[in-house]
């Protein structure tokens, strides 16, 4: 069997501040296959964001193994990460197209090709015709679409999403879930998706990784065997309900 694209094995992380130590993650171990969309679920403050920051190379684990990439699929930490956050964090003074281009500028990618790619991406996320608008002219959902296009501009192999739809209203959130699944299918990226939303976690993911309250420890890691493409109607199926129940139980809510 081919090695997984991402492997975490016994990862432990402590934050030191002045004289206090805060154990953020006591033990995290899971694999993510290439092209998977994995949901990371757990209570607030359980270190989910810390795991994303470690995968982005922004902080290193204290111990354990964290490896991204395989011989077949090389991973360049400088340019193979795209990030999406809870807030769109678009630059107010840049038009949408220029916002999407930001990572390409920082990485020094050829500008003409990047512009063409940015237009294609805006098309893909459903923002065709919004290239020359300013962020304040877009709704929250549209801003988040632009943020997703920005995360894809440098064609990274791994997309890290930290509760990207948590600030949206419920209907927009459902719509964005479907959009994300479509974007994922079309772009064939590996996606790690942190969420508090239990339904969302199951609906989106090929696999769900569950962490317990801080310090984070692995609680579960299971495959979601629902067919693709997913439809909202699946949420009414028994199989979906079973996954959701399993998650509620794990998080001590049922």
């Amino acid at each position: 069997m081919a090695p997984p694209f991402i492997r975490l094995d016994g990862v432990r992380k402590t934050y030191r501040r002045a004289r206090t130590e805060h154990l953020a993650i006591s033990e995290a171990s899971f694999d993510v296959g290439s092209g998977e969309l994995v949901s990371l679920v757990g209570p607030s403050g359980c270190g989910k964001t810390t795991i994303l920051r470690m995968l982005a190379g922004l902080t290193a684990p204290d111990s354990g193994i964290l490896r991204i990439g395989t011989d077949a699929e090389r991973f360049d930490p400088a340019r193979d990460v795209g990030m999406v956050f809870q807030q769109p964090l678009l630059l107010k003074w840049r038009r949408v197209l220029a916002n999407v281009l930001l990572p390409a500028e920082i990485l020094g990618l050829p500008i003409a090709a990047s512009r063409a790619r940015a237009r294609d991406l805006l098309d893909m996320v459903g923002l065709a015709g919004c290239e020359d608008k300013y962020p304040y002219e877009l709704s929250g959902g549209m801003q988040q679409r632009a943020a997703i296009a920005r995360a894809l501009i440098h064609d990274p192999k791994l997309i890290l999403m930290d509760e990207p739809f948590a600030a949206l209203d419920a209907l927009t959130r459902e719509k964005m879930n479907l959009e994300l699944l479509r974007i994922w299918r079309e772009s064939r990226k590996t996606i790690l998706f942190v969420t508090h939303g239990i339904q969302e976690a199951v609906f989106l993911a090929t696999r769900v990784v569950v962490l317990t309250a801080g310090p984070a420890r692995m609680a579960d890691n299971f495959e979601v065997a629902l067919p693709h493409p997913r439809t909202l109607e699946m949420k009414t199926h028994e199989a979906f309900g079973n996954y959701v129940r399993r998650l509620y139980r794990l998080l001590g809510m049922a």
Partner: protein
Amino acid sequence: MDDKALALRRITVIILSHLALVVVWQLFVTLDKVPAFVMPTPLATVATLSQANYRWLDNTVVTAAEIFGGYLLAVGVGVSLAMLFSWWRGFETAAMPLLVTLNMIPKVALGPLIIVWFKYGIGPNILIAFAIGFFPVVLTASRGLREVEPELLDLVRSIRGSRWQLFTKIQLPGALPYIFSGMKVAAILAVAGAVVGEFLGSDRGLGYLMLQVQVALDTAAMFMAVILISLIGMTLYAMVVLLERLLVVRDARLD
């Protein structure tokens, strides 16, 4: 009503309210029979411009040079210092408390000292205008440069963006609205600084002229000098606002 018609209406209202003030002024003086040495009429005020020995043009140019010079110095030094702070946090930690204390000094009180050190003239007056306009610029600019969302920092770092890229692409443009709000405050203060400098010791400028004509109780000329000083200040302020409109997207502007 479209945007153009709205803008036209706003401008009309502005002009009318100013005209109304002039009319009220004229009526007040003539109906109340206020003596000219207490308050001249608007017409008498404008008429003093024909007094060649007051050298209106020269004095206006001198005062304008002091205001603009002190202001540019305040903005240049203030923004540079704020940049230095953002690059070198240790320096900011050490210097900021000092700046806050120095800011407490009434800058006008430094005037006599500055004149002792640098004699009187355009240079020292520029310094006084600078001293009074500098603080709001450095304080707002360093605040603006500090206001970067931590996640945006993560985004740039995750693709190994350099410190310089973070500065030019995110910090500086993000700080512009703050810098402009400081620049607007400084524009008003710089005018006051230059005029105080001229009061304290000077042989040219509108402030100097005011002291000269005060002796002769030429109130109309004093009124005219105040109006000209205000016009210089308004010109400076308008230029700053125009620059802000050009550089800062509407949504990002403060106030």
